Every structure is written in structure tokens, then in C-alpha cells.
């Protein structure tokens, strides 16, 4: 079992920037609690790869507003995993040539909501 506080701390340390990444998700803490150490380690490794530009982002050409940014100014990195046949997704959002802003973690329902906000298909 992984503690949500520790997860945020470790993930935040990997990103290592002055701007504090927001960790979002309706059941964020409950899902992190379900993670095994191995699964959490895989997510940290994936984050490292994102930072080192080894993971490919999705860029949407929409001019729609998303909070303080336009959707086309954002890069979204997607990661999928499952626990006991339930699928979860992470959406890690970065401003083009700038900071990482949000780390979303949720089930398909939460993902569907954020996906629509970010104009993903």
C-alpha cells in the first residue's frame, strides 16, 4: 500500500520545478492507497521518462480555453494501468515549452470528464 502523501512528495520531486504540480482526481487518495509498491514504482519511472522526453505527448489543435491556457498550448501524457480488472488512467499535463501543471488520476468516469475538458477524443 502506498501513502498518498508520500506519492505526491515522490512524484513532485521527480518533476522538480518551482511551480507546484496539482494532484487531481475525485478518488485520488483511495486509488493511490490501492497501489502496490511495484505499481507505484512503475508510475515514478514513467514520470522520469516523461521528464526526459522519452514519452510521446498528445497535442490538440483546439483553441478552447482550459483554465488559464488554451488547449493547443498544452501537452498531455497518458498512462493506463489496472488494479483487479478496474482500469485507471493518469493524465499529466504540461504547458508547451514550460511547466508541468496537473497530474490527474482517476477511473474511466473521471477520465471521461477531464478528457472532454482537454478536448481529447
Amino acid at each position, binding site marked *: 500500500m502506498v501513502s498518498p502523501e508520500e506519492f505526491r512528495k515522490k512524484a513532485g520531486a521527480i518533476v522538480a520545478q518551482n511551480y507546484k504540480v496539482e494532484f487531481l482526481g475525485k478518488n485520488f487518495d483511495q486509488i493511490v492507497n490501492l497501489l502496490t509498491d511495484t505499481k507505484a514504482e512503475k508510475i515514478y519511472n514513467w514520470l522520469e521518462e516523461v521528464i526526459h522526453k522519452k*514519452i*510521446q505527448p498528445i*497535442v490538440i*489543435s483546439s483553441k478552447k480555453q482550459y483554465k488559464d491556457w488554451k488547449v*493547443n498550448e498544452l501537452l498531455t501524457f*497518458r498512462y493506463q494501468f489496472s488494479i483487479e480488472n478496474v482500469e485507471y488512467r493518469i493524465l499529466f499535463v504540461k504547458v508547451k515549452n514550460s511547466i508541468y501543471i496537473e497530474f490527474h488520476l482517476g477511473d474511466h468516469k473521471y477520465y471521461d470528464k477531464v478528457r472532454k475538458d482537454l478536448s481529447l477524443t
Partner: protein
Amino acid sequence: MIIYNPQNETLLKERIKSAEELLKQIPAKYCFITGSFLYKKKYHDIDIFVISRSKREFVVNNKKAKITVIDFNDLHSLFYRSVSKSCIAKNILPAKQLKVTFSDYWNVINEAIPTLMNEKDTYHKNVRFLILYTEYFRAGEVLDTFQLARKIEQFKYYKEILDYVKTEIVKITKKEIKFSYAKRFFYTQAGYYKDLQEYDAQSFLYGLAHDAVKTAHG
């Protein structure tokens, strides 16, 4: 119970019965089951679809069941047309005219390429939309879940899929859209990829957009 089976696939008899029992548990007029559960001895999930306006959660007594709710507003989509083409349904399913644009297709490519490059040869599931749209624009045919699974199995490596998209997109562009539109559309898209050439996916998409315009011109 209605069986939609236009390709005359061999369905497993015992699964038809199980499908019927599962559908009975869903309190909705329009629901159906499709996918490998109906024709493969070994299957991963049972793909159940419910057409509903309700926001309620539907559940059935089977851990392998994966229920997807389709809104009535989405009945014109290629996705619905594909999943409902070969299936077992509780009632006759509603049909709406298909609405698919070239821009929808590009949106699918735009998301599928980075996903494919990240997943490499573990892509199986996420590449469905890419193949579905490409085959629709290439041959004018909506593949059902059986045909789609078979088509995906033809690719041995993810790079073969990248080559397939590269080959087909230029032919499709030439066939489907006017040069003036292609030029405006693809140069706009390329503009978004231009500053992201350090990423393989955006570099590939940038090249794809340019190839498509060149072919449309020729």
C-alpha cells in the same frame, strides 16, 4: 433477442445463451454484447453496451463484464456503427445516419500515433480507432468487432501500423479532400507540431501532414 451477424461469423452457442442472460439483467431497452466473448473460447472482457440517457451505473453479475454507456446523441458515430454491426441485442437497435468527417479522422490519428509509439507492440486495444477510421476512409466500409480484430492481427509490429497509416493517409487525402482545403488544414496542423520536433510522434505527424499536402497537390 436479436442477433446481428452480417458476416455470418460462427458464434459460440453457449455464449449466445450467456449473453441473453446478461442482457436481461440490464434495466434498459437498448443494450447489446459484442466482441470476442461471442466467438472466442478464450476472451478477456465481455463488452456490453447500453444506449441510455441516464447517468446511472449499470451492473451485471459477472466480473469480466465491461459496460459502456452510449448516449443517444452518439448514435451517428463510427464507433457505434462498428460495435453494433455484429452483436447480440436485447431489442432492434436504433440506427442513425453516419456522420464522420476527415477532421475527425485526423483527430484520431493525432492521438493514436503518440499512444502507439508509447505502447509499441503492446498496442492492441488502443489502435482500434485508428484502424477503424482508416479502413472507413480507405474502403468505405465500417468494420465490425470481428473484422477489426482480424485486421489488427494482420500487423506484426507497431511500425507496420505506422507504415500503413503513412501509405493510406496520402491516398485518402487525395481522394477525400480538395487541395485548397488540404493545404489550409494540414499546414495549420503542422504548425502545432513544428515546435515539438524533439518528440518522435510530433515529428512523424509533421511529416505526415506535409506528405498529405504534397500528394493532394500532385
